[in-house]
């Protein structure tokens, strides 16, 4: 109901905004990339808290769809408004992926706000400063961190592979039992491929940190040929959810998934509770999503307040960790203090903090990211 109202409101669009900004009560427009759970989180969890703390103001959330496609839509909306010279940008807070955050900062679409909010110094991780090789320091606050890992069915795989190397052997012995969604069906498959490149080229560090050098691409052909051979014995799944569905129906025994999605589905009873996770070496990528404020946002001050609330330890603990099974956006110690031990431990049931520190990798920097995807299209699927 709430959402349909938000949709109608967005259709009425600019004119509405112009009139409401004259009144005392403001409407804060939060646009988020990602699955429906992102919109739910803002509508059901953040909005009531923000509206209670700031009486008279309302939050409306809009979703632009999962994956980089969702971030791309937000980018296009902001870029178009900037190109048209709009002064009151109709997005106050946006939630975007790493790759797009870097591009938005580079094109001057965002406002630097982290120093202005009270929670700005609660995050010291490098993801708050660098987004896939682009300096975004000050422009972003991580909403949460997410991680991919291999989900497996212990009944079928008592001793899961610990590394990509072992996985390759296992797949050769058990053809069709490993499933992933390629690179066109969602980010868990993309993440698996990026981890593959970290494992089978010796360029991991350069891919993650740069600098970008086009000539490195020549050294990928062995890794990609190996992936092509690997794919022969793989079952392809339709999308991130498709991998989980196939695991659940017993059609595959193993596959890469997003950790938060896995735990949430298990908590909702949509996934076999016996399934487990394993983060294989040398590592698989994960990523944060960022709160950003567009340059020239109509309600920039209110936006900063909103993000301050959303990145406060209490909200991060109850909303991000407890409800949605994400890893916190701000530094873990601030959040752990707000939670009982059992809840905190649940987050690390299968993938411990040490594993996460050692094998949780960032995605490659933007230009390598695109180059790897295209090399995959050229050499693996062709």
């Amino acid at each position, binding site marked *: 109901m709430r959402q349909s109202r938000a949709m109608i409101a967005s259709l009425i669009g600019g004119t509405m905004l112009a009139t409401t900004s004259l009144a005392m009560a403001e409407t804060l427009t939060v646009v988020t990339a990602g699955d429906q759970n992102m919109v739910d989180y803002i509508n059901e969890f953040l909005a009531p808290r923000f509206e209670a703390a700031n009486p008279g103001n309302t939050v409306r959330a809009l979703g632009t769809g999962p994956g980089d496609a969702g971030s791309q839509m937000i980018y296009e909306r902001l870029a178009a408004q900037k190109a048209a010279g709009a002064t009151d940008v109709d997005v106050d807070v946006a939630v975007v992926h790493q790759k797009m955050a870097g591009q938005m900062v580079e094109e001057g679409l965002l406002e630097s706000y982290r120093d202005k909010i009270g929670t700005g110094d609660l995050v010291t991780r490098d993801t708050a400063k660098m987004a896939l090789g682009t300096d975004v320091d000050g422009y972003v606050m991580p909403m949460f961190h997410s991680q991919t890992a291999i989900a497996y069915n212990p009944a079928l795989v008592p001793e899961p592979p610990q590394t990509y190397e072992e996985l390759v052997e296992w797949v050769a012995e058990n053809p069709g039992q490993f499933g992933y969604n390629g690179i*066109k*069906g969602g980010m868990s498959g993309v993440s698996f491929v990026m981890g593959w490149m970290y494992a089978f080229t010796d360029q991991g560090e350069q891919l993650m940190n740069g600098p970008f050098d086009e000539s490195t691409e020549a050294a990928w052909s062995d890794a990609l040929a190996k992936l092509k051979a690997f794919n022969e014995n793989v079952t392809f799944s*339709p999308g991130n959810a*498709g991998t989980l569905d*196939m695991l659940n*129906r017993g*059609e595959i025994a193993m596959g890469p998934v997003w950790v938060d999605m896995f735990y949430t589905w298990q908590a909702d009873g949509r996934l076999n509770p016996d399934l487990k996770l394993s983060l294989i070496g040398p590592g698989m990528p994960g990523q944060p999503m960022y709160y950003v404020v567009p340059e020239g946002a109509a309600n920039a001050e209110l936006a900063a307040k909103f993000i301050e609330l959303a990145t406060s330890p209490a909200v991060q603990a109850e909303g991000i960790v407890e409800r949605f099974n994400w890893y916190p956006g701000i530094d873990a110690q601030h959040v752990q203090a707000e939670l009982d031990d059992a809840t905190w431990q649940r987050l690390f049931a299968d993938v411990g903090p040490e594993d996460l520190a050692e094998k949780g990798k960032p995605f490659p920097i933007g230009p390598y990211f695109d180059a790897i995807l295209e090399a995959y*299209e050229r050499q693996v699927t*062709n």
Partner: protein
Amino acid sequence: MKASPFLGPLLVLPALGVILLLFVWPLLYSLVGAFVTGEGWGLGNFAKTVELYRSDILFTFLIVGLSTLLIAVFAVAIGGYLVLGSNPRAQAILRWLYRWPLFIPFIVAGQLMRTFLAKNGLLNGMLVEAGLLTPLQTLSFLDWRGIVIAFVWKQTPFVALLVAGAMAGLDRSMFEAARNLGASRLRILVEIVVPQVMQTLLVGLILSFVIMLSVLSVPLMINAQTPTMITANMAFRINAYGDYGVANALGVISYLMAGAVAWIYLRYAVRERMEQR
């Protein structure tokens, strides 16, 4: 009172404006965009399209072509039974049932098929329960077969609706004359009914062809394999790379496919008209 000579054009203007603004302009924009590369004008986007997606282009053509043929067969069969069938009750049930998929959007059809056709999905589950298959013999249909099944299921009612309407308008005395001379029902359908509704059938099939060419949700939801349909590649170019150039080039190829089919139809229609004169 004499109408002003400007009134006619003036009344047409809003409709014309809408077409120009919402159809012709984006069409030109995407056509032109296909030739814009990072280094100015050129054929770079098409070179990349052919390099990366040639098998997908062929795949798309074959999948949509095969679906169109199957739709033709089923639509004629349904329409034929509705005019020539001998069991009024079966006819009534068929007439009531066959239109249902018309009201279901492609994305919902994709979602239905995704769980229906999976390896351990509903279809295989029923076959196993019925003792027709063992669990080890089951296959996943979530590949090109799934796309064809979803397309045929969704588009057959549309063509059948048009064809059945045209068939119902034919003069029944012809069928009765043919029956009296001993022709089987199948022969009446193939030799008397279908030739007379060919125009309608072709229009329905061409519309279906063009519609299926543009469907994104079904290949995205059903087909995890490669090759895939070019709509999925267009979405991927834009979402993963922000690359509208190659996406537009793929779009141009899809216009060409649709255009080729329309051209075949026009030739046929013109020839028909000449013969009728």
